[in-house]
Every structure is written in C-alpha cells, then in structure tokens.
C-alpha cells in the first residue's frame, strides 16, 4: 500500500512522459470469459474468493488493478487447462500465505473461526432451553 501511495504521489509530483505510464493491454483472460460456461463459472467462483493483493480488501473478481487482471488470467488459463479450483487456490496460498484466500480453512491459526460458532450454537441451545423451559 505504501508503495502504491508513494507511486501516486510521485506520479503527481514528477511530471512524467504519458507513455511511461502502464500502457500494456491487460492479460488476454483478464477481461475475457472462458468459452465453456461450466469452466467460466468455476473460475468466477474461485476468483470471488481470492484477494487482490494490490487493493484494499477486494477480491480479484472486483478489481481493475492490473495485478488482479493478471491473477484472473492465471486462474482462467489454469482452469481451462483442466486444473482443479482448489489446486489453484493451494498454489497461490503456497506463495502468499492464507492472506490471499478469503475462504479460511481449518488450520493451526484459523480453528477458532470455526470452533467459536460451534460454541455459540451450543450456548444458544442451552440459553433457549434454560430461559424458556421454566414456566411462571
């Protein structure tokens, strides 16, 4: 983020030739859907759960950042090549850690996310039984 702010600030301060801005067209599959609807659906579902690393809390499916476009290209081309969505997620998690995935899985660091709702469910059951079980 700091680098991003820095980049914007410096871009505003230093007058740069317009051509020096990022002008390369986006990756082929950044803004293009796969022809197979089932594959596209799988890709879309996965992209909605991957975090755009250059953005403020957005998925790569919701961002115009060039890097998000390149990540969409990765996802679509891998799905088209027959890779499983979860394998692609695992590939990215191997590189960026759990941060890149919006779908936490039960692990050493995330088990309370699942244990606490379970606890809430039990507590809710107990409260409802206790509070309303007694009659006046």
């Amino acid at each position, binding site marked *: 983020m*700091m680098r991003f702010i820095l980049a914007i600030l410096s871009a505003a301060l230093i007058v740069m030739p317009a051509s020096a801005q990022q002008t390369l067209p986006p990756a082929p599959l950044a803004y293009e859907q796969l022809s197979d609807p089932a594959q596209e659906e799988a890709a879309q579902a996965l992209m909605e759960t991957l975090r755009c690393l250059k953005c403020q809390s957005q998925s790569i499916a919701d961002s115009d950042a060039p890097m998000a476009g390149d990540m969409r290209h990765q996802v679509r081309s891998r799905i088209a090549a027959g890779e499983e969505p979860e394998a692609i997620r695992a590939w990215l998690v*191997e590189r960026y850690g759990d941060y890149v995935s919006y779908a936490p899985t039960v692990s050493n660091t995330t088990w309370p996310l699942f244990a606490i709702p379970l606890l809430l469910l039990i507590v809710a059951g107990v409260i409802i039984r206790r509070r309303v079980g007694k009659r006046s």
Partner: protein
Amino acid sequence: MNKLWIWGPLGLFLMFSGLAAYQLTQPKDEFVQSTMIGKPIPDFDLRPAHQDRPGLAIADLKDGKPKLLNIWASWCVPCIAEAPHLEALNRAGAEIVGVAIRDRPADVARFLAQHGNPYTRIGADDLSEVQLSVGSSGVPETFVVDGNGIILHQHIGDVRAEHVPMLLQKLAEAGA
C-alpha cells in the same frame, strides 16, 4: 453460569480493548510477504525485454552462482529511486537479473538509457507469471536466489543505500 453471564461481556470487551490498543501501537504492515522463502523458483522462460540483454529462464538461475532477482517496471516510480543503489550493488560484484513487469521494449530501453542498466539478463513478464510464482505482490521487489534457484530472501520496496550491505551479505552467505 450467572456470574459468567454478568461479567463475561466485560471480560470479552477488555480483551478486545487490549488487542485494539496493541494494534494501534504497531505500524500497519501493508506488505504481503512471500511464503516462498527457502523454496525453489518454479520453471519459467521469459523472452528478452530489451535488445541488448538476453531473456531469463529458470536454467539461468540454476547455474551455481547466487544472484539478485529484481522485479521492476519502467512505469514504476520507486524503481527510478532504487536504480543508483542497484548500480552500487553491481559495482560491488553482485549479479543482478531483471524481470520487467507488463512493459514495452521501447519503454524499457528509455528507462535503462536514463537510469542505467545493472542487469545481465532481463526477462519480460507480461502476464506477471513469474511475479506470481515467486509470491511477489508489487514492484520493485528484490529476491536473493542461491545457485540452485532457491529463494533465500525477499526485499519488498525500493532498495536504498542502507540495504546494499545487507543484500551483499545475503549473497555472500549464499556462496557468492
């Protein structure tokens, strides 16, 4: 049970307050660290980004000599700031290979003419493939890679004067 219900909320609230207070004192870490440290760089083969330098492939990183892998772009402003320090690293004997992200050959050539060319090889990564495969999330970033293509260290952001000895040290540790 009754005591728990009466004092529980205060306890939870105090726990939250402690956490929030602690986090306020911490500088916010906006960088996404790569989790590829200690792992080999996957296969890749990039075409040359500049006519004077060859492209970059995985074999070039496995030639037994530790290197700096610099991820940059001609459109990236901090990359201008780090150019002199890359030159300094180069003069001190570090071998630097470049990966240019989403860049045109003409822009690369102009950048190198203006700010110097410390690279022995520059690969053009038009789809951020190499960037993604090493777990980098921005430009510029510099990776220390050993002679077998294994990532030893990731430096996020532009290389400044104070980082030069540290990067040389890391290279020396890798057997340069």
